[in-house]
């Protein structure tokens, strides 16, 4: 299981997700970051259920949401359940496979990518 991270600027302390090249604080020019686990409780800010998924997703729908963690960092990810989704609800982040890419080279290789899957507490 992979770990998701927030990235703390070593110069000003601002937390980021995802990783940036230069600190996003307009008054800072930091370029070095400390990776800190980004996990735990979060609040659902908005969400959607999508039925026209792109190539490679063989399911009838997927739920997506934007959350805010207790440290103020926001992230977008999949929502791992269908019933009772409401903006403002409390969730917890888990990490799981969010996409499988098939790479064709002599024989096909499935490459799994990990990301946030938000669940009920």
């Amino acid at each position, binding site marked *: 299981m992979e770990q998701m991270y927030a990235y703390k600027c070593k110069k000003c302390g601002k937390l980021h997700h995802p990783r940036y090249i230069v600190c996003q604080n307009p008054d800072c020019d930091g370029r070095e970051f400390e990776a800190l686990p980004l996990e735990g409780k979060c609040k659902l800010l908005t969400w*959607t*259920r999508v039925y026209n998924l792109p*190539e490679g997703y063989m399911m009838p729908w997927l739920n*997506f949401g934007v959350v805010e963690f207790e440290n103020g960092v926001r992230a*977008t990810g999949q929502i791992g359940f269908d019933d009772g989704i409401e903006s403002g609800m409390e969730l917890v982040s888990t990490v799981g496979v*969010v996409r499988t890419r098939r790479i064709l080279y002599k024989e096909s290789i499935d490459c799994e990518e990990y990301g946030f899957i938000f669940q009920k507490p």
Partner: protein
Amino acid sequence: MRQVGIVGVGHTKFGKSNVPFLDMLCEAALLAMDDAGAKTGRRNVIDQVFVGSMGAGMVNRVSGAASAVVDSLNIRPAMAETVENGPASGASAVKLGVMAIASGMCDCVLAIGGEAMREVSGWEGTDFVATMLHPTAEYKYGLTLPSFAGMFTRLCMTRFGVESKDLSIVSVKNHDNACQNPVAHIQRPVVLERITNPTYINATNPIVADPLRQFDMCPVSDGAAAVLLVAKDKQEELGFGHKPFVRVAGIASATDTHVVANRENPSDLLAVRLSAEKAYKMAGMKPEDIDVAELHDAFQILEIEESEETGLFPRGQGHIAARNGDTKVDGKMPINTSGGLKAKGHPLGATGVSQIIELVRQLRGEAAGRQVEGAKTGLAINFGGFGNNVVATILTTK
């Protein structure tokens, strides 16, 4: 600064193209050149061609499109560059043309936008458009542009009281306008009752990205559009003196965070606001000076929110204006007289140029059946990414 204006416009019929991508670009280019009276071969006066396209390389397996067009049109040795700026590629091509002439480097520029998206399946097309999202924070999750539009709409519903029916009202209005536009993809009226009645709405207007339904978003289209730009001080000399000069009074772009979640307020469209403010400043104008607007309604919620961010209506009042009919052709502030992306269609790279052409038609008084009486100044918003790169253009005949 040197005055730059449009003297020729060309627009293919949007929808499903029966000709290859490059031929479609050339068709629009020749229509614009013929409109202006521009010649080819030894009599060519075009210094530069810009082609705006998002998917030429990825979808159509065509790179170097601008070079190919210059050769096909026999306007060598004109300079040629292809511009990629997502769905704002078209207006970016026009912006670069204006910059080239204003700087004195060129006197005459042909700006073309085009996309042939229907060469691939809907799934592949949806995936291709989604590649403009952040690769690790958004795209890899299966997020798409409709996904973000759905989440954005939910925020606007909570913040401003926008209702699903408001989106349908905008959709019906744009379909009505497209019926008067011979180059629109879907020239068919839509009945509000039919797409909003709860008894059968899931059959006639199914959910695509909750809360968005099919009629709350644009179709997938092929198409191309072109404009011929010229310096005011060279219009006569280059042989375009007989054409009305539609002046580019202001053109500007602005950017916002790539990751939508990281915006200070994710229900704001900051790049729309900033690009419009810059264009107004360049033109020496205010929102009250705008007679007609083409806004980027890839999703109907965007027409509402862009109408507010550009200052055409107060914040939170865009959906009320739509309900009141203020954005109809005969309303106080006509928006998307062309049918908008919703019904005219949205071939990504073509859209920005197409919006500008609709304004030219309005300002020349050539928009038969959808003409805004006395229109002298128009605003276009071409929206790239999910609002992370936006181009605003103001045209005028004043």
